[in-house]
């Protein structure tokens, strides 16, 4: 609490024009909210002149974020003019990064064609086929946890379950699935944040990822079409033109999209259980609340802290003059705490009315494609947790990912009670 009070004090005393909410250290310390709260009040569309990622605009209020997210004619995701994340090195060949183009980094019409090639696998109709296997694995993972002992929930539950799911979607060799976790993690990192020592190492590992998938792609192309994502890409007419960069870029998008995100919501849910046990008691007494609680977990955690756009023209927005080429960051993490749209936004409320009305999946044409899969995985996880454990106690301080994009945990020590 003392630490939070200090953060709050800093955020209220330093001049607004010195705010830089992109600093990963703020994310490590979970110190963003006092900054965002002041920005929402005093400078909802805020310009940061200088950051490690260059100058950028921040959009912090819920409805303003929806307005930017749905205006792709002005606010582009296209890789040719910028990126959909603040840090250009994540997807573009600048300052050590490598080029990872994909359909999230495209505007219509090509975007639509590529998106629709992938969409069927995560459509609700298809997801029903996955539920039994998700449930079997979830039970197995939960039954293997050491009740009463301290362990890392992130590694034993969140990573394990999401990586197994991803291996299934891709029909990736199951015993090697932790390579997916590794590749997913290094896409969104830079040297110096504990995962890779140099840009060369990041590039080398991502090239290994490309080579591995090119071989899988080659095999699937020769075989009869199947329902996994690699086979779908290999047999999709729309995807035949993919060059090697776009191939890797598309895979990376699917890997990060299907992995880091749900992982963070699985961890965030455990932390919420620790902090708001009475909310979970409500759900235990009325299991039909689980889907609503899942939406609340996804809002409360907000696993993707931001998405970025690039202005295609000079554009006045909420009184601010955004210039062509400017980076515009939509802070979903802030919009999901906007008290004008969400009542008591800091509270975790399992039976919150209209819980689905949150920003975590984004809005508009780039809205999260795997949202229904994520919700199903989380629903099954919580249905099974409720059958087994009475309490999840978080022991010690959670260790958070040093990233302004991936809002999640590296280490969440917990103790479970029957």
């Amino acid at each position, binding site marked *: 609490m003392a630490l939070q009070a200090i953060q709050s004090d800093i955020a209220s005393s330093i001049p607004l024009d010195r705010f830089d909410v992109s600093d990963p250290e703020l994310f490590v310390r979970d110190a963003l909210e006092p900054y965002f709260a002041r920005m929402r009040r005093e400078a909802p569309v805020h310009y940061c002149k200088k950051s490690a990622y260059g100058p950028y605009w921040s959009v912090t209020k819920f409805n303003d974020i929806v307005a930017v997210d749905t205006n792709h004619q002005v606010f582009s995701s296209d890789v040719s003019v910028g990126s959909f994340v603040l840090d250009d090195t994540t997807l573009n060949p600048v300052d050590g990064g490598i080029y990872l183009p994909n359909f999230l980094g495209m505007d219509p019409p090509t975007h639509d064609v590529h998106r629709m090639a992938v969409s069927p696998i995560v459509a*609700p109709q298809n*997801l029903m086929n996955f539920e039994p296997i998700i449930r079997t694995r979830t039970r197995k993972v939960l039954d293997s946890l050491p009740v009463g002992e301290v362990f890392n929930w992130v590694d034993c539950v969140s990573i394990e379950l999401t990586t197994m799911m991803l291996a299934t979607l891709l029909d990736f060799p199951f015993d090697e699935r932790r390579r997916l976790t590794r590749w997913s993690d290094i896409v969104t990192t830079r040297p110096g944040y504990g995962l890779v020592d140099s840009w060369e190492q990041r590039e080398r590992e991502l090239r290994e990822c490309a080579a591995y998938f090119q071989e899988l792609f080659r095999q699937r192309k020769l075989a009869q079409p199947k329902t996994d994502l690699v086979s779908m890409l290999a047999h999709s007419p729309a995807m035949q033109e993919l060059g090697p960069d776009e191939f890797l870029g598309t895979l990376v998008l699917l890997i990060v999209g299907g992995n880091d995100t749900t992982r963070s919501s699985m961890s965030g849910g455990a932390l919420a259980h620790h902090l708001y046990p009475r909310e979970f008691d409500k759900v235990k007494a009325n299991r039909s609340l689980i889907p609503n609680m899942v939406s609340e977990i996804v809002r409360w955690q907000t696993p993707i802290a931001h998405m970025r756009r690039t202005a295609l023209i000079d554009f006045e927005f909420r009184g601010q003059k955004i210039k062509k080429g400017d980076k515009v960051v939509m802070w979903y993490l802030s919009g999901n705490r906007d008290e004008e749209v969400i009542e008591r936004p800091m509270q975790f409320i399992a039976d919150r009315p209209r819980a689905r009305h*949150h920003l975590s*999946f984004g809005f508009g044409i780039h809205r999260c494609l795997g949202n229904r899969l994520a919700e199903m995985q989380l629903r099954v996880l919580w249905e099974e947790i409720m059958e087994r454990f009475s309490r999840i106690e978080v022991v010690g301080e959670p260790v958070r990912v040093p990233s302004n994009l991936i809002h999640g945990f590296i280490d969440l020590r917990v103790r479970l009670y029957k």
Partner: protein
Amino acid sequence: MPKITFISSKDIRYEVDAASGLSAMQAAVDNAVPGIDADCGGNAACGTCHVYVDAAWIGKTGPARPGSELQMVQLTDDSRANSRLACQITLSDELDGMILRMPQGQH
């Protein structure tokens, strides 16, 4: 006050009375019709109030409008010529009796 019937993919019917001027999405949400999620709250920004307008009524509602609605409709699974976002259909006495069918799931 127009009466609207929502029909699920499993042929379950939900009849709702709604005030003119409301959107079909709002009518469904106010009456807790399952299958209309309306995640974005009526901005044509999520595609989770996708409906198929009955052939007898599509002439009156018109097809999905160019812009956000058409773009979101085109990106939904199983989009058809009579696909609309319910949040973009404004109810009126002229639409009294309209039938809207819902897809198997909102994506």
